[in-house]
Structure formats: C-alpha cells, structure tokens
C-alpha cells in the first residue's frame, strides 16, 4: 500500500489502528534426555552468528551448609580457576583469545557454567565447559584469592545503599538461613572456608544427576546432542539429595528496619514479604497482578509515587524467580522526608488491590503488555538460553511458554483480586529504609516497631533479630 498523498486526511486525535499480526509462537527447541540424569535443551536461533551455551549444575545457595554460607557460590566460582588441563589464567586466556567469555556462578537454585561467543567457535566452547565442570582442581591460591575478593566485596557493599537495603531486607524476611544472607557468603563463615570445603561441596552437589545442558543460537541441536553426550559421559550420575526447605521468618505485624547512613542524600526503600515459589500454580495471574501493581512504568505504585507525588525517580515491584518462597518486594529510592508517606501510599495500593478487582481495561492493558513484550525479551541467543534454563530449573513443562499465552488471556479481574488477597500481605510487611535514622525514625514510628542498624549490621539501641 501507499500512504494517501493528502496530509489533511491524517487524524492525529486517535491512535492509528494496528495491523493484524500472526500470533507469536515460542521458538521450537529440542529437549532430550542425553545421558542418565542429564537433559539437553537446544534451539536453533540463526539471527546472528552467535551461540550461548550453559551447563546448569544441580544445587545452589539453598544447599549451603548452615556453617558455610556462601559455599555453593564460592565452589561454582572456583570451577574455572583451574582444571586438570589448565590453570585459571590459561582458561581465561584460551576463551578470550576467541572473543568469548566464560563464567561460572551460582544462584540460590543452581550452579551455572556459561559461555557466549561467535558460532564458529562452538566446539571449543562445549569442550571447555565440560573441562571446567568435570575436572576442577580448586587450587589453594585461587581459593584464598577469591575468598579475600569476596570479603572485600562484602566490605564494599557496606557503602552501597541498594546493597545495604537488599541485605537487611533479606535478613528481615529469612533470618540467618537460606535467602537471608548474601549469595557470595557471610563474612564470619567466609573467613573460615578453605579448599577442602569447596572440593567436598563439588563432589557432593555438582553431579550429572539433575544437571542440564542448554544451547541456543546459530547451531544444530542434533550436533550438540552428539558432541556433548560424549564429553559429559564420565561425570558421576547419581544425584545429591534435595536441600532443606527455606523457612521465612513469621511476622504478626509490620516491622521496620532503618539502616543508619547519617549523611545520605536520599532513602533507599524496600517493602515486602516472602512470596510463592516460581512454579506456584497462581504464577500467571500473579505476574499480571504484579504488572499492573508495579511491574511496568504505567503501574499503580509508580504512577502514585513518581507521577502523582514526585517522591521518587521510579518505584517497582516484583516476585522473585526461585524454587522456594522468594521475596515479593517493592523498591524505590525516595526523598528522605517523604519516606513514611511513600510507605503509606504503597501499603494503600496493596490493600486496594486486595479489596477491589481492577477495571477490565486496566487488566487488558497488563495482559497485552506481558503478551506483547515477550518477543522483545527473546532477542538474543543468551535470552533464549535463559528461557530454556527456566524450564529446566523450575521443572516447567516443554509447552509452558505456549500455554503461558493461553493462561494470560484467561485471567479475569476477580482472579487478580483473589491472587492479591492470597499472596500480598500488607499487614505483615517488612519495611527497610536505608538513610539518616534521625530523620527516618520519627516518621516511621507510627507505622510499626522500628529497629535501627549500623551499615556493618550491628544493632543500634534496642534492635533485635526478630523479623
């Protein structure tokens, strides 16, 4: 078609009509049991000459021993610091020579060895991932170096308002157990960690049983299956037992934690509580609920705190993606003098959503947003690998992302109110405010009991550990 020549015909008062668009389908992928205990997910995504590979290791921070908090993350980090064939620097030099990068890390649920690089180097990447995952040597000097680096990182975080807020919020929700401390470790435990702890965690937890290989990009899934089966065959197959469940702290009222930074120019705010696990059956209506509550710019909390009141540059809410009861949280950096007002407005938004079903239009906007934005989140080979990784880590069915679109369209206004009533708990929220205590405590006292902490984590005055 061509646009009409006469410009007067253009009616700017109404948004233009959309063209019809074919429904977006999640890209096809291969899912196969490759070896006993080990699955492969592989997708041919030829948009760019890139590949992204990821070996997911069973067990993450949730499996940290009680006296070795941070061990899963440290062990994962050490995988590429020395193999039977190469030293850490040799491993880095080898992959970086090709323009690629290799990373080894853990989150609360799993460990990950990942590599993204140009597709022509795929066979090298696959062999290197197998090498570091199957033959790590945990050299003493590297354990010592990473341990010191982590201690310095924990120290650095004491001057970061966002890190302080996240740490205090996690501690308020989960106490000293899993999810309650930084993934990279607790200072006291890190000081005591040594090589044998990492080597033993590795032998116990990072095994083929429960592991998954993910591959996405300009590649042939069958070729990956053929190459990787051989590379990973010698890995012990029997899985380690599942970790202890995560136990959130029980609270019967709103509790407020102020981390005192007397000179702070602004206050870093967190508000929330433990939420449902990623694979909870309410997950899709919950995502829609969160989207209209605080998951996008046009959401109730952001419009309230930013556009109506000018308290903040932006406010956001989210449910964590974790195997266990990860946090639901609202986060914002607010003008210190408006902190209590921002908390009240936020709690008000949570309660309103529990009491009144949203209008059909507001719901439709949220559903169309989540549906329409999905392809945007799938543009890179790495983002496709992440989606496949979600299927594996959270045990979601192969047709989960196809079903996701159907489930989105089935959500009703009343279902939003119901999941808000079931999963939001404004009456027992933990509130964390990092800023000048002298200005914050008087404002916040009317909302609940206030405990004050130093940036180093020491109680100031009568603070205690209870949620």
């Amino acid at each position: 078609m061509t646009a009409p020549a006469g410009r007067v015909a253009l009616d700017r008062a109404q948004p233009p009509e959309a063209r019809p668009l074919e429904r977006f389908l999640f890209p096809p992928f291969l899912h196969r049991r490759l070896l006993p205990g080990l699955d492969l997910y592989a997708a041919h995504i030829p948009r760019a000459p890139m590949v992204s590979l990821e070996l997911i290791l069973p067990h993450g921070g949730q499996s940290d021993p009680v006296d070795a908090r941070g061990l899963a993350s440290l062990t994962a980090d050490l995988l590429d610091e020395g193999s039977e064939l190469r030293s850490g620097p040799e491993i880095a030099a080898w992959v970086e020579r090709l323009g690629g990068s290799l990373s080894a890390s853990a989150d609360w649920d799993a460990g990950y060895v990942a590599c993204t690089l140009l597709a022509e180097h795929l066979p090298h990447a696959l062999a290197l991932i197998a090498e570091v995952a199957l033959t790590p040597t945990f050299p003493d000097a590297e354990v010592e170096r990473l341990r010191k680096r982590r201690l310095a990182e924990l120290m650095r975080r004491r001057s970061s308002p966002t890190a302080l807020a996240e740490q205090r919020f996690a501690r308020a929700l989960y106490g000293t157990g899993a999810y309650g401390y930084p993934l990279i470790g607790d200072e006291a435990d890190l000081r005591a960690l040594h090589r044998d702890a990492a080597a033993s965690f590795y032998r116990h937890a990072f095994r083929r049983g429960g592991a998954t290989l993910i591959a996405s990009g300009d590649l042939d899934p069958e070729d990956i299956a053929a190459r990787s089966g051989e590379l990973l065959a010698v890995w012990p197959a029997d899985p380690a037992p599942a970790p202890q469940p995560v136990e959130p702290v029980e609270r019967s009222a709103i509790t407020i934690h102020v981390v005192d930074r007397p000179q702070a120019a602004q206050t870093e705010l967190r508000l929330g509580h433990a939420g449902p696990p990623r694979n909870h059956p309410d997950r899709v209506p919950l995502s829609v609920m969160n989207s209209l509550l605080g998951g996008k710019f046009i959401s109730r909390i952001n419009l309230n705190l930013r556009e109506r009141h000018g308290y903040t540059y932006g406010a956001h809410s989210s449910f964590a993606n974790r195997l266990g009861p990860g946090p639901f949280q609202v986060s914002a950096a607010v003008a210190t003098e408006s902190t209590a007002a921002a908390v009240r407005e936020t709690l008000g938004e949570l309660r309103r959503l529990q009491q009144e079903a949203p209008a059909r239009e507001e719901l439709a906007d949220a559903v169309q947003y989540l549906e329409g934005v999905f392809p945007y989140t799938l543009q890179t080979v790495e983002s496709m690998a992440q989606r496949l990784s979600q299927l594996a880590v959270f045990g979601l069915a192969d047709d989960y992302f196809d079903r996701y679109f159907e489930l989105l369209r089935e959500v009703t206004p009343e279902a939003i109110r119901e999941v808000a009533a079931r999963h939001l708990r404004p009456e027992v929220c933990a509130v964390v405010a990092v800023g000048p205590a002298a200005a914050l405590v008087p404002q916040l006292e009317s909302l609940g009991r206030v405990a004050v902490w130093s940036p180093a984590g020491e109680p100031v005055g009568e603070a205690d550990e209870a949620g």
Partner: protein
Amino acid sequence: MTAFPDLLIEQHQLDNGLRVVLNPDAALPLVAVNLWYHVGSQNEVPGRTGFAHLFEHMLFQGSLHIGTNDHFRHVQQVGGVANGSTWYDRTNYYETLPANHLELGLWLESDRMGWLLPAMTSEKLENQRHVVMNERLQRVDNQPYGRAYERLDELLFPAAHPYHWPVIGYMDDIAAATLADVESFFRTWYTPDNAVLTLAGDFEPAEALALADRYFGEIAPGPRPPRPRPELPELAGAVHETQDDAVELSRLHLAFRLPPYGHADWYAADLLATVLTGGLSSPLYRDLVYDRQLAQDVGAFVLPTELAGSFALVATARPETEPAALEAAVREHVRRAGAEPFATAELDRARNRILTHHWEGLQQLDQRADQLSQLVTFFGDPHLLQRELDRYRELSAEDLQRCAARWLTDERSVAVTVVPARAAAA
C-alpha cells in the same frame, strides 16, 4: 569461518530535512523506532545545566493529541517498551513495539516533535523537576563514588566547555528551569532537520518510508542554530584531586583527553582500552586483580563524544592497598603502553572481543537502531554500522603505542581518587 550476515540498510531524507534510516529484518515480529535529536548538555549554558535532560522528561508529559503519561500507556498497552535518554551531544527517544504497531510509534513521536508546546504546563514542569532531583540524588549524590565522574569532567574540560558540567546538571540549575526555557529550547532544537529517525525490524521499507513522511512530513524545519565549537586549550599540567566519600574501598579514576569520536586515534584508544582491561586475561586485570591483588576490579573505557574524546581508567583498591600504590601500578601500565608495542596476539584478543560484542549488541533491535541513529547524526553514514569494524582491523600495535604516547601521558592526566571519609565525630 562463519559468514557474517549483511544487514539491509537504507537512508532517506524527507523534504523538511528529517533523515530516515531503515533496517528491515523480519526475524522477529518487532519494530524498533528510534529518534535522535542532535542536542544534549553540549547545548546548555552555565546556570541552566541539566536542562536538556529535564526537557527530555517533559517530552513524556504529553503533547497536543496525547495526554499526560499516555505515551507510556499507549506503548505498554500493546506490549511495547519505551524510554529516552540524554547525553552530552544528543537526546534519544525510542520504543520497541510489536511489528503491527509501527504506526503507533510514528504517531507518538511525530506528535511531540510537532505539537508539544500546547500541552506544557508549569504543574508538569514542577512535578518532573522533583522526579529529576530525585534522579540526581539516586544516581549521583546518594551513590558511592557518585561525584567522581562529575569531578573528572570538571577537571578535564575548562569551565566554558560544555563537557565541563554533568549531563544531569547541578541541583540549583535544575531548580531554576522555567516554562519559558522549555519553549525556547523546543523551538531551537526539536526540529525535523535536527533529528534522525531510524526504524529497524519487521516492515516493508517503501511502506515504512511513506508512513514516516505521512506522520513527520508536515512538521516545519527549524532555524538550524550553529553547532558549538568550544575552545579547548591544552591542560596546564597533570591534575590530581582526592575526594572524601562514604565508601569503604578507595577508587582511582584516571582520565585523559582524546580526539573526538571518528578520529583514527579515537579508535586506537578504544582498542587500547580493550587490550588493557578487556577480560580476565588482559594485562591490567591479570596483574592488578589476579597476580598482585592490589585491586578489586579495573576497567577502561572511551566515550563516543563529538566535541572531544576522553579515555578513563577506573580501579577499586583492595582494603589493604594504599591508593598511591594502586595509582603507581596503573600509571606504570599506561606508560608502558606508550613505550613499547603490544604483541599482535593481544590486539587480536581485543579485536575478537569487540567483534563478539558487536554481534551481541546487533541482536537487539533497539541497540541496533540506536547505533544507526548515532552514526547518521555524527557521520551521515549508517553503513558504518558494519564498516566501522574495519577501523579496528586496520590498526597496528605501533598505532596503539603512538596513540598512548601522544594522548595518555602523565602530564596530560587528570586523576580523582575517592577515599573513605573519616567517620564523623559522634
């Protein structure tokens, strides 16, 4: 060797001067709409710093046919993503939409280019002034090390040069902006002949061009004010400042002026930054973080700026490292870069890293469109998107050495070391 795909790129110009770049790519049902206005903090004056950025916020407050906040509403309700950003030389506005909503993006962007002023009110300005002040607090004043980059620019460029002041502006200047400023800034800079529109994604080029003309064609061109040509006398000598901040670890920021983006030495410096600190096997990471463990982290970067370039090295000290020892070690590496050539293998590692990052970025339509707008704004040539890689391929180890010896010398260096403030007396 993998064959690298060729991207289809067209450049057009409407009668009113708006340049239109088209990059059709049907791999995903998406379209990126990206608009660069050639105006940024370089076009501000002392006393009104931060205005280009505050103005960018006002462009999301509605225009004649679009209500307050309806820009985001229209985009998000169809599953799009939108934002804008302000920098030294330019302000960009962009949305990535489901491909069938291309026309929505054109409608939204053309309405604020053509019909912004009827929607401006002092209430909106007042609200966004608070949002921006909070943005400054969040990004600068309440961030550890947050004031260091600002100070680096203040020391690197003289007071009359527009790179002297921060893009986000000083608090008092943000407070001083008026609605009259909004109007004159709009009339001066937000004109079709001072802008580049790029579309990347799933569309038919002839149709997209016709639509761009339909929505933008009737907007009148503007006065084309002269581009700034500030004087930049040589630094009188090395500068070194120490800043107290609420931090636990000290951090060194070491910067040097460079020729502007596009100059051969700019590319040499960019490649040198990647040689020096790109990856765990780079010499600075290997020496400072790995072997001697003086630093927690180290990085170097070169900014693609139009009036003058800059090269910055940033290294955070370990708790037990004296800031002076870290600085001496960093400077020694920089001196060596000017004194002897790197091995070809080091250049190849850096070039492969740049090539990989190039393709990583191009996968994302919004980044690709933004790159195209940048290349047309600065150089008038969108095909540099892929040809620019040749500028890196052509460089030799001796070119990098010459570049370091010419620009990265101790006498031309500006350093800001942030150290932990001594605890205030209780």
